[in-house]
């Protein structure tokens, strides 16, 4: 057959072209499928993450509100904090406070905090006055405080002078206290000292 080689050649070319076209079609569809699968997986992960965020916000709503109120993210002004301490002194005879410069404190290389040391020197008639003050401060201070040092000592001895003062409704400084707190707020590692 004269036409057989041409027929075979034509069929070969046609089939090769067809194979190339179908291979291309398959590759395109395969790429589309992989893209779709990846997109779906990414979206599922994103949704999971967003849902986790929502659950976290719902569960920690009160805590976060408390932290906002306490100035955990942006510490309150020292003037405000000092004013609060004055207001919380209650039945203390005397209170003196010192706010030391803010430092950055790293704990366990993971947790970084802004830390301000507050030294309070108080005088009172009874130690219960100081305990009450400590309670008030831990509740109402506009920040998160952790005690570092508490020293209570007997101040003035019971004497005629102090008895006279008591008779005159004056409150002798029977107890003196040194209270050292650390005022913590959230910090970042790249925070400058």
């Amino acid at each position, binding site marked *: *057959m004269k036409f057989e080689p041409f027929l*075979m050649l034509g*069929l*070969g070319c046609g*089939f*090769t072209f*067809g*194979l190339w076209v*179908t*291979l291309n*079609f*398959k590759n*395109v*569809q*395969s790429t*589309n*499928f992989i893209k*779709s*699968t990846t*997109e*779906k997986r990414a*979206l*599922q992960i*994103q*949704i999971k993450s*967003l*849902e986790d*965020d*929502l659950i*976290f*916000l719902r569960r*920690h709503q009160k*805590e*976060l509100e408390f*932290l906002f109120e306490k100035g*955990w*993210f942006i510490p309150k002004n020292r003037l405000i904090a000092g004013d609060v301490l004055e207001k919380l002194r209650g039945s203390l005879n005397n209170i003196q406070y010192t706010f030391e410069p803010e430092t950055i404190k790293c*704990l366990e290389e993971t*947790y*970084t*905090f802004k830390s301000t040391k507050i030294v309070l020197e108080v005088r009172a008639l009874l*130690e*219960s006055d100081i*305990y009450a003050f*400590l*309670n008030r401060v*831990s509740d109402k201070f506009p920040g*998160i405080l*952790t*005690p*570092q*040092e*508490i*020293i*209570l*000592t*007997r101040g003035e001895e019971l004497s005629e002078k102090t008895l006279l003062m008591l008779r005159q409704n004056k409150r002798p400084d029977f107890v003196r206290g040194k209270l*050292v707190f650390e005022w*913590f707020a*959230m910090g970042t590692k790249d925070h400058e000292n």
Partner: protein
Amino acid sequence: MKKKFLLYLTDEEVTLYKGANEKLYTCKENLKDAQQQLQNVLSNSPKVSLRLLIDRNHQSIQEEKLPFLLPWDRMRFLSHKKAEWQTQGGYVGFHFFKQKREAYFRWVHVSQKDSLISWLSWVKSLPNPSGGIFFVPLEAGIFLKKTLSVSNNYQMILYPLSSAGMRHVIFKGNRLLLSRLSQGEEDLKSSLHFLSRTYPDIHESLDVLSLIKETPSFLPHVKILSDPQALLSFLSAQKRPSLSFSQSSSSSLLRLRVAAGVALLSMLFLTGYNVYQGLDYKRKVLTLSPEIGFLKDRVRYLNSLLKNTNVPTLRTASEHYHYLRARPLNPIEAFEKLSFLLKKQEIHLENLRWLHGQKLEIMMSLVMEDKIGEPLATHFERFLLACKDLFPKSQIHVIKGPFNSSIREIFKTPSPTSLPLAQIKIIFP
């Protein structure tokens, strides 16, 4: 429609027709000269196709009954046959057919040594397009079926040959039983007698179609056609021969064809497979599309809920706060409890010291009133027991007792004006 050239070849004569009725040339003797003269005739009409009609005494058409063969066994059988033909070269045509649930293989092989080869080569060399190669006895079977009726009975056709008398061809259904030249009744009788040994019922169920004027009288069921050229007209009008006849290809060519066929089939299979896979991927993508749309909507909705909220910062803040709270640092609660206890036990606190460290420790000095009628040791012990009840998991260390009872101290009762001083350390867990 243009009339074809019909070149009718017998063992003794070559006749060229134009159409079925117009006889152009006849040659009986020197066939080599005939080719030259025919070429001259045909060259006048090079575009008219030439059909070769072969009608020889030589039994070139052969049939073989086959046992039941599976397709691959049939392929093997065919490949053996082809190999056999290839060794002899020449031209070959074959086909399988079935009759009464039995398979038959029919073939025509014109070997390289056959005198017909020179005619086939000559026809091939002509510029006239090929009109096909027809074996007249074989085509006569089709003519019979058209003229009589399709039957599995015995059928015979009698047709005239220009010089050598007449030819009779006998069929049983599709099978060709015999093709023979005959001069008269005796030849016909001997043919039928010969066949009756294998087919004893041939005399009873034989239908005859005759194209000759003087049909032998002993034949039953004879149908006579008045036109002796009817078979030639039929052959001229046939579109293609019942047996495709071509040059026997060499084994390497055959292998090449097989390889090409396999390659084409493989490509076809791969093409189909690719299309299937592509469509499958497409279907999956179409299934995924609405899911992705839904997920995107969900993401948009959740993002709208979390708008302007920096959750990672909030998480970090919460984590930091919890870490700080988890550190056991706050002694205020312990102080309060201790204060209540001291008041109850009528013990005066002299000093209290708590320093931030790894453990929660309170160091305190206290003075105890020496009660009349109660030993100081009992009072102190009661205080220590109360402390233990208050802080059950803590360790209480007595640094200094309020007794002044060692051998180097002054021990006197009632106690002097200054109250006895005790010093204890409480270590919380």
